[in-house]
């Protein structure tokens, strides 16, 4: 996996460096870090910290997209998990709270996976159902209020630090390593890619495509729930209306920027997380530069279009022809 990184991830790494450099120009103290109360502070840490929810979402999303699917419900699942965590936080132990919230994410993922893998629904449609209904369910849990809590354990998840590193960042890193170890340490990743490349052929070759599809949606649900818990812990409250709103789009965007094709068949976890960081670095840079945050959307749109055009099968076709011409000349 790491051996593939430099060649495939070059564009993304370059993009990140360019954006970081622009941020440095806009805000000279961008790279400053300081240690205070056992926790690192600074714009870079801020980028990592704020990028955590989207990074977690993109970890699940990248696997779903690798099977040629898509999960529109992750934002709603975040809201559900956050609502559950917030309403249980002050009366139950942290273990119970986490189990309940992540369990809810698992059930949501199972539902999506069931619709796609067993009933054979189109992924956009199947996950649209939970996207629409999920926010309603979250509001049902919080009864439409913003539920606040003060449980120190849960607050630590959002604001604490391990060895100076903010807990959310540590969790995201841990999840990246865990997911990477599971899918790339075994044949699982390959089987997921096979399912996305050609589900029927994989099925005939003996890949349990149904189980693969089901499990990626479950994993996506769990990742989304974790992101929801962290987002709730960060603000010490759950707002069913706005938690995770439109983050599904950011997560898809992160995956696409990470070079994973929406047509399935191949994926890179590291690059997807890098995509999430690129988005967040852009957001933070725009905020620091003093431009109105409204520019965010425009910049995002331009980035999406650029990445899309670079990825377009037509253009890769041209690039391939150009490469062949160069080879024949040489």
């Amino acid at each position: 996996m790491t051996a593939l990184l430099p060649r495939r991830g070059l564009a993304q790494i370059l993009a990140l460096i360019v954006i970081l450099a622009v941020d440095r120009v806009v805000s000279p103290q961008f790279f400053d870090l300081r240690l205070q109360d056992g926790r690192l502070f600074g714009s870079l840490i801020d980028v990592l910290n704020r990028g955590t929810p989207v990074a977690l979402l993109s970890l699940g999303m990248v696997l779903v997209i690798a099977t040629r699917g898509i999960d529109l419900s992750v934002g709603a699942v975040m809201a559900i998990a956050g609502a559950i965590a917030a309403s249980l936080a002050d009366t139950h132990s942290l273990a119970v709270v986490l189990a309940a919230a992540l369990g809810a994410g698992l059930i949501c993922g199972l539902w999506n996976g069931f619709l796609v893998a067993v009933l054979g629904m189109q992924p956009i449609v199947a996950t649209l159902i939970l996207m629409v209904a999920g926010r309603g369910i979250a509001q049902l849990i919080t009864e439409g209020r913003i539920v606040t809590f003060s449980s120190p354990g849960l607050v630590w998840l959002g604001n604490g630090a391990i060895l100076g590193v903010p807990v959310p960042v540590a969790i995201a890193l841990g999840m990246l390593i865990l997911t990477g170890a599971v899918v790339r340490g075994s044949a699982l990743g390959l089987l997921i890619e096979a399912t996305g490349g050609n589900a029927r052929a994989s099925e005939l070759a003996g890949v349990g495509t149904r189980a693969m599809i089901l499990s990626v949606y479950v994993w996506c649900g769990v990742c989304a729930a974790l992101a929801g818990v962290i987002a709730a812990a960060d603000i010490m409250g759950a707002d069913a209306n706005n938690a995770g709103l439109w983050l599904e789009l950011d997560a898809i965007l992160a995956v696409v920027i990470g070079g994973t094709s929406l047509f399935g068949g191949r994926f890179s976890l590291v690059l997807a997380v890098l995509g999430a960081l690129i988005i967040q670095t852009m957001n933070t840079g725009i905020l620091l530069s003093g431009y109105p945050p409204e520019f965010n959307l425009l910049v995002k749109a331009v980035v999406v279009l650029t990445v899309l055009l670079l990825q377009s099968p037509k253009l890769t076709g041209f690039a391939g022809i150009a490469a062949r011409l160069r080879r024949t000349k040489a």
Partner: protein
Amino acid sequence: MRGLPPALITAIVLVAGFAACAVQFPNIASTRVVGNLLTDNAFLGIVAAGMTFVIISGGIDLSVGSVIGFTTVFVALAIERWGMPPLVAFVAVLALSAAFGAAMGAVIHVFDLPPFIVTLAGMFLARGASFLLSTESIPITAPIYSTVSDFALRLPGGGRLTAIAIIMLVIVIGGALLLHLTRFGANVYALGGSRATASLMGVAVGTMTVKIYMLSSLLAGIAGIVFSFYTSAGYSLSAVGVELDTIAAVVIGGTLLTGGQGSVVGTFLGVLIQGLIQTYINFDGTLSSWWTKIVTGVLLFVFIALQQGLVALARRPVAKSAGAAT
């Protein structure tokens, strides 16, 4: 008649739902409530008609909500700050939105990209553009606005059929005729059935794609103008999330999201079902608005599962006969 059975089911659900509501709250069965239902959902009906074309052709358009938002801001600014006559402002914004849709269609076709992600970029772009124009809510005081909002046909029973409801009904009827009676409509179905086949049969796939997204954005622009009549203001955050309501209405209306099947009339009924749920919740008073989302989600599931079943049924005999032939 393609797509009639699912739309028929939608009609039955609508009538049954309406009857159930009317039993509980007899006042619902009045022209007054029905008139308001049409007025409140006028912009949704218009944009959903356009979305029906896109979805039948096998695509999706996520940008419509943002286009509505952009239109309201543009119209408000043009009339109030730039001193444009309202009609000129309308024409200008419709030209802009049509060009925007055409551009998206062109990108989708030329670069062979998934409509989902291209229109997602379009969604960011249009919303970002409306933020750039203005982030505050701009009231519109032009006389044409009060004239249009005061205009209404009196219905028997005290109901009012407002101008924007009439615009919506005209567009729904026009859309249905365009889809079912013209070559353009037939081509839309052909594209949704199979792009490759349609292309081999001589459908100009590229031109069609551009035209379809142009139509959708144009209708979103009209919906934006109607929305500005409805609220008498332009606001860059208006109609956030409308693309979801629209897609839900189209699906509940019996249009297949994989393309190739569906009807504008079904979509119209789907819009009315969503409006009916909202009306019921308003009448009940104790239910909260989030029930709308949950019930819409449940309805979505039921309709999609139903379609899935119908498609499976339709495919079975074909598979058998194909097996027998070989």
